[in-house]
């Protein structure tokens, strides 16, 4: 037997003993992210705006996870979320800024509230959570902050000036935080999904669906699991030298 065969190779991307806070966890992509992290052994605090839906999701996960309902448009509630998670979990290793809203409209018709609401939930809440999470992570000399952005943050999309701005904002914010926190063992990255199968895409007419997939070299929409796998990688110890990056998960529809 050769020496390397005697040593059992450690399973990669094992998150046993780590804890994570995931926002928007009862949604399509968020639930897949939460399930992926839990499957690798992380203990979770799942957050969302609908308390009943969130608790049902938490119960479905099994294990020893906690649900922390939060309205991300309420600044004070957002500031309280990380301390609540640390209290419930004992430590915080991973923050996943997943929650996001859309208020689509052509720019010329876009109301101030539509702009404000999207920026507040998608970008400002993510900043508040990252700022709060940096505290315990700095003390631990370890942390992983992963924000879910979007292909449209890089490419733009008509009708989504607010959404595209919020998603591009996450990328810039993450790069700045990555530089501030790298020396403390904290990495800050983004995952940018392309078109992902969801309740929203299911109801699209067949013609529109095939027009969509025609733009995707992989020939199909992505799944929540595709995004969950990307988040698991960036959250893992193995990705410790990867920071300030955006991992595009889009079947090749935009190569950036």
């Amino acid at each position: 037997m050769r020496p390397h065969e005697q040593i059992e190779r450690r399973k990669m991307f094992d998150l046993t003993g780590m804890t994570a806070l995931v926002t928007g966890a009862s949604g399509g992509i968020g639930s897949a992210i939460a399930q992926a992290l839990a499957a690798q052994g992380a203990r979770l605090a799942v957050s969302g705006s609908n308390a009943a839906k969130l608790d049902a999701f938490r119960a479905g996960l099994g294990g020893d996870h906690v649900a922390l309902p939060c309205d991300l448009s309420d600044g004070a509630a957002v500031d309280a979320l990380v301390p609540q998670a640390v209290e419930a979990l004992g430590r915080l290793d991973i923050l996943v800024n997943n929650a996001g809203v859309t208020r689509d409209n052509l720019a010329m018709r876009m109301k101030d509230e539509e702009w404000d609401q999207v920026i507040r939930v998608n970008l400002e809440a993510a900043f508040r959570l990252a700022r709060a999470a940096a505290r315990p992570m700095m003390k631990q000399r370890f942390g992983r902050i992963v924000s879910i952005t979007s292909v449209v943050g890089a490419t733009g999309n008509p009708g989504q000036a607010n959404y595209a701005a919020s998603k591009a904002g996450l990328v810039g914010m993450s790069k700045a935080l990555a530089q501030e926190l790298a020396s403390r063992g904290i990495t800050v990255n983004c995952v940018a999904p392309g078109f992902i199968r969801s309740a929203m895409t299911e109801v699209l007419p067949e013609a529109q669906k095939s027009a969509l997939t025609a733009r995707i070299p992989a020939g199909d929409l992505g799944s929540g699991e595709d995004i969950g796998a990307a988040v698991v990688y960036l959250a893992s110890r193995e990705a410790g030298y990867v920071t300030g990056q955006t991992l595009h998960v889009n079947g090749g529809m935009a190569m950036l």
Partner: protein
Amino acid sequence: MSDTADRVKKIVVENLGVEAEKVTEDASFIDDLGADSLDIVELVMAFEEEFGVEIPDDAAEKITTVKDAITYIDEHKD
């Protein structure tokens, strides 16, 4: 030397990884002890935890030497 001074110096030695002799009361965190702005944030967090005081940002900005920290903490701890 006061109890506060001892505890502050211990935290500075631990956080900045400098030799205890260098941590005089006149020593500047940035100019003499090689701290960067993130180190200062961490030091302030450590002081808050050790002494149970809250050091707001505008006060933290004025704490540039070991002595500044000791004075602030002595004035504000219970």
